[in-house]
């Protein structure tokens, strides 16, 4: 299993290849399109992360001591951001997820999505990802 830190480094390297914002956003849009969607039946209000602008549904399962996340959004750029987050956090142990920091978001130039005005739920998404991990950890 690749460590969270290593995946973050990989993503930072990938983003360094982009010359401008447009390539970066085109890449995120592509990521968003390729994100496996959450089942319609799972798009329930209790899985909804309330952001001001776009809706995000996040679900988590606990398998073989790892947390598997699935998520979806009604906005494509948000889906791209989710795809990046899932690549980092999904299929990891609760302990690793809880210990991970999120500095890489700043390093790939998506910090603006962390500001409260963006309200696209990135901050809430990370919080919810960690909350699921915490819940699974305390169950065991």
């Amino acid at each position: 299993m690749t460590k969270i830190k290593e995946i973050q480094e990989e993503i930072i390297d990938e983003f360094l290849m982009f010359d401008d914002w447009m390539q970066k956003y085109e890449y995120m849009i592509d990521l968003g399109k390729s994100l496996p969607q959450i089942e319609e039946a799972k798009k329930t209000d209790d899985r909804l992360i309330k952001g001001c602008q776009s809706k995000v549904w996040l679900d988590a399962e606990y398998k073989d001591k790892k947390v598997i996340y699935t998520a979806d959004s009604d906005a494509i750029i948000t889906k791209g951001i989710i795809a990046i987050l899932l690549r980092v956090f999904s299929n990891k142990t609760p302990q690793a997820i809880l210990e991970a920091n999120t500095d890489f978001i700043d390093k790939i130039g998506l910090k603006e999505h962390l500001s409260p005005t963006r309200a696209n739920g990135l901050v809430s998404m990370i919080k919810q990802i960690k909350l699921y991990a915490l819940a699974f950890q305390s169950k065991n």
Partner: protein
Amino acid sequence: MSLDVQKLRKQFPILDKKINGYPLVYFDNAATSQKPKVVVETLENFYYKYNANIHRGVHTLSQEATNLYEEARKTLQKHYTIKHPHEVIFTSGTTESINLVASSFTSLLEKGDEIIISQMEHHSNIVPWQLLCERTGAVLKVIPITKRGELILESYNQLLSNKTKLVAVSHVSNTLGTINPVKKIIYKAHQVGAAVLLDGAQAGMHLKPDLQKLDVDFYATSAHKMCGPTGVGMLYGKEKWLNKLPPYQGGGEMIKEVTFAKTTYADLPHKFEAGTPNIAGGIAFATAIDFLNEIGIETIYQHENKLLTYATEQLTQIEDIELYGTAKRKSAVLSFNLKNSHPFDVGTIIDKLGVAVRTGHHCTQPIMDYYNIPGTVRASFAFYNTVEEVDAFIKAVKKAKTMLS
């Protein structure tokens, strides 16, 4: 008279800003307008030369500050053609103005009384009335809208009855741009003895209502949407209503005499102006109004209308554009979506190209529910915007469409 936009833009240094390497195209004027130098200078000048608390000091400085503040009140009185200066209440903005009326109306309502609002209201003109209904047992009624975003007046007429105590509607819709037929609305309400409050937040920079001719009972507005500073606004109330309503907040300045047995309240307008107000803001509000009048509100309206017509033409030529709000009379607001794209995605990409618009529900969730959409992209124009900026905006939307499809 046509506008010398390039000359006017020199009053707004922020318009020269670059965003992400592109010239800023500021099309979020319905959220807040930019501030001209004269307004900022008034603020600075007040703090450097006149700052003192008002209405209480015997010293010269306090009297000078008081004079400036009271002159500002008269500027607002004149601008809105209000009968008495004491019918102008300074507030922190439209939201507070509406809350003041809703709060003070509590003692005048009984269970079963009715308040009418409309489906196109901003949350600020919905929630205070819902709270008032909760306090009093009054019932909220809603005027529906058409697909074009116009009020259905037949439904309004049917909603009116002798139970109606208050009608609160927007003068101009912040999401759809619709200019409502407020004169008719007021006339009809008065026939059943109901008072009318107009939410004038979006009318500020584009229209110049004569409040006496309109015969409206309350008019709420904000300085920051008409070139003034944030945190200051106006509530106009007819004298007879303001005398009838109990005070909104208690504190200094709003009293005549205070003993522990009984307090008597100050005369209008001070009865509704508890505490030290936003003195510099109030004075700068008047500067903003003078600035707008110097250009001429009618001239402003014509210019913005030209931009709106041009932008609408250009935008609708793009395939897959869905417009929201196509009323016959509308102000310079263009709400739209790209089919199959979320407004957040469109807004994010065009921001990268320097274009500032608002995306989301614009604090009008009932409108979004009506059209069954999560939100819209809203471009709103001001007199300092140009045709070239509309072109940059259209180019940005086309780019977003390419990237998102």
